[in-house]
């Protein structure tokens, strides 16, 4: 017959100070781990959510990002007319020639950051279909107009609707504000590609192309065909692959995060074991009595383990709640976290502790509950009733 759940919970309540401290340990570890993985997940989500499933990105062979690539006008003209490319209502191919430049922007806080400015044609809004203008309008080509991403607006001097934005050699009027579901585009400024090329004095005008494949068309064949043209030495890959590669530094961080979570978890398990041993120690006569009353070894084991698991559970609930709140508070206080040594330009990420990060925290709390409770529970179960009662 198992011991009632009330017995385990009651024991925790009996020794409130000790339970409180141990719950604090578990909560702290869960909070730290969830926040750290949350940061990495947010970084990753920002980068990977920039892709559209139908899109190919065309870069020069060997270029790792669009900042280090060059695509000629002839290549663009050729690729534009390949079969298998989606077309808009007026039958123009959905190929977006793009140029990226990273000029200095001055933050309102007084710093200087490299911001990614993307030169595009109006067709870009159809190719990057998750980019939506939420205020104002799209820029008019050759009018020195710009639209700015959600994370750029308000971060830099002049980056608000209707203001003059100074970057590169010119002055640009901000006429629109766009969002794209939290992707890295939201940290960019978009202007007319030809104006940007003139401003940056780039002769081969584009750094890359985005190609939207037609519904049902063989995307792989299209990519192969672009890559096989010996005149241009270009390489086409699905945007999802490209952004997954861009997020690779996030993977390295995940490894670090998991390693650190492991360390924290082991430390916390020892802390929990300490509490549980003490709890068993203080109850030796009681456990002897229970055994004498006929409760099995297994019932004792389960009761003690349950106690430890309950600590883990309460710790997780507390730590997880705090992690979600802390994520909100931190991102509100820091106003988005700037990151981006890899692409050389600033990527503003919004810290959010999501389900995955809480899952990592939950696993950790479970491991601490089991790891901390197993040995003390085994010890309690092994107690011989006669000896245990003698201590009373």
């Amino acid at each position, binding site marked *: 017959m198992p011991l009632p759940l009330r017995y385990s919970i009651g024991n925790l309540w009996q020794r409130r100070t000790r339970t409180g401290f141990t719950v*604090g340990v578990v909560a702290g570890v869960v909070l730290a781990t969830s926040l750290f993985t949350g940061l990495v997940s947010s970084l990753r989500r920002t980068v990977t959510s920039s892709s559209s499933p139908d899109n190919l990105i065309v870069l020069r062979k*060997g*270029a790792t990002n669009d900042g280090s690539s060059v695509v000629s006008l002839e290549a663009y003209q050729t690729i534009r007319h390949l079969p298998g490319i989606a077309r808009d209502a007026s039958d123009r191919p959905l190929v977006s020639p793009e140029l990226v430049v990273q000029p200095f922007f001055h933050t309102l806080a007084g710093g200087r950051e490299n911001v990614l400015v993307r030169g595009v044609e109006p067709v870009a809004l159809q190719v990057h279909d998750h980019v939506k203008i939420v205020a104002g309008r799209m820029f008019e080509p050759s009018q020195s107009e710009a639209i700015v991403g959600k994370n750029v607006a308000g971060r830099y001097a002049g980056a608000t609707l209707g203001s003059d934005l100074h970057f590169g050699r010119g002055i640009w009027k901000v006429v629109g504000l766009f969002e794209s579901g939290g992707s890295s585009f939201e940290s960019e400024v978009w202007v007319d590609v030809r104006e940007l090329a003139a401003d940056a004095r780039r002769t081969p005008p584009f750094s890359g192309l985005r190609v939207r494949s037609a519904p049902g068309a063989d995307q792989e064949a299209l990519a192969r065909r672009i890559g096989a043209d010996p005149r241009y030495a270009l390489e086409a890959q699905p945007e999802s692959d490209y952004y997954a590669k861009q997020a690779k530094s996030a993977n390295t961080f995940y490894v670090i995060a998991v390693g650190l979570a492991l360390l924290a978890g082991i430390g916390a398990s020892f*802390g929990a074991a300490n509490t549980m041993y003490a709890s068993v120690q203080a109850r030796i006569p009681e456990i002897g009595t229970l055994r004498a009353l006929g409760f099995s070894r297994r019932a004792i084991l389960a009761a003690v383990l349950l106690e430890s698991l309950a600590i883990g559970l309460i710790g997780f609930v507390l730590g997880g709640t705090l992690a979600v709140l802390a994520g909100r508070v*931190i991102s509100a206080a820091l106003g988005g976290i700037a990151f981006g040594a890899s692409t050389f330009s600033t990527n503003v990420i919004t810290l959010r502790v999501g389900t995955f990060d809480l899952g990592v925290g939950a696993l950790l709390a479970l491991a601490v509950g089991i790891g901390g409770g197993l040995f003390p529970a085994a010890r309690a179960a092994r107690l011989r009733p006669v000896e245990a009662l003698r201590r009373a």
Partner: protein
Amino acid sequence: MKYLPLILRNLLRNKLRSLLTLVAIAFAISLVCILRTMPAGLNALLEHAGSNTRISVHNEAGLVYPLPYSYLRRVKAVPGVVAAASWTWYGGAFEEEKGVTFPNFAVEPDALGRVWEDWKVSPKALAAFRRYRDGALVGRQTLRKYGWKVGDLVTLKGTLFPGELRFRIVGEIPVERLPTFFFQREYLDQTLQAQGSGLDWTGMIWARVDDPSKVAGVMAQIDQMFRNSPAETASETEKSYFRNFFGMLQGFVTVILIVTALVALTIVFIAANTASMSVRERFREIAILKAIGFRRRVVFGMLLVEATTLATLGGVAGAGASLALTDLMRRGAGGATDPALGPLAGFVVTNAILVEGIFLALAIGIVAGVIPSFGAARRSVAATMREVF
């Protein structure tokens, strides 16, 4: 001092508890030390790597905007400038499928040794760098990563420029974590001329000023000289350049510091738990000590020292473990960390971090021990005895 044996005895009384606490604290402190290496790596770079007498002159619009090459001559002529060199990003990839894995720049071979005197490149390597048109001087990190030796031939494929360039490695730059690969500007220029273009611009200019007090004046003079030209310049010291370049990691570092603080907080809980448990079961003993004449202060001190000793021992063990763990992490990465993580992923536990970790443990021991010890020392003898008997 004379109480030391008693304190030690008390620590050893419940060996299991002391051991569990010690190990728990050790793990947490090692975690703190490892986390601390991330911001510390960034700070070390910002504090030490940058020089105050070397200035970077770049286009006011941004680092990717070029400068006319003729600017180099004019910068050199500014009084106070000892030497100046231009950097032109080549963007060469050694393994094409991996892209650009180390920075490579075209530079003037005769100026390199003088602008970066502090790199202490051997005169022999510098002489060879001047002599061979296709020579390359390579930072130690990249040489090690690819196992290259002086005399090796290396081909880099241009990602921005058409074609590829073949280099002969002529020397090492003996700076431990420097990945940069330098080659002669003339070589790139001639290759491009053969293809019908040429190199009449540069990415940026580095200049060394002879006297720190002149730096501000020289920078102002340079920027003034190019004002209202097609490419206005912005000059800054190397220190400020690094600060701006890596400034965007600052927000990330803030979150890591918050996580570190949380881990430290859990150590407080672990230590406080142990202290309160061990004090509680000793109420009777403490009452007897006081009854036979031990001062409250002495009892309090002994209990506090006990908690602090345990935490500090855990701190020492944890700091030591962090050394071994980071060594393992670096070896696991094969000596090559992800370049995107920059200075955050060096994982170098410095002596300062070790000392910090141990002192943190000590401080935590005090914080965690103070309340239980004080409570126990203050407890009235009569009350305790009444409870116990």
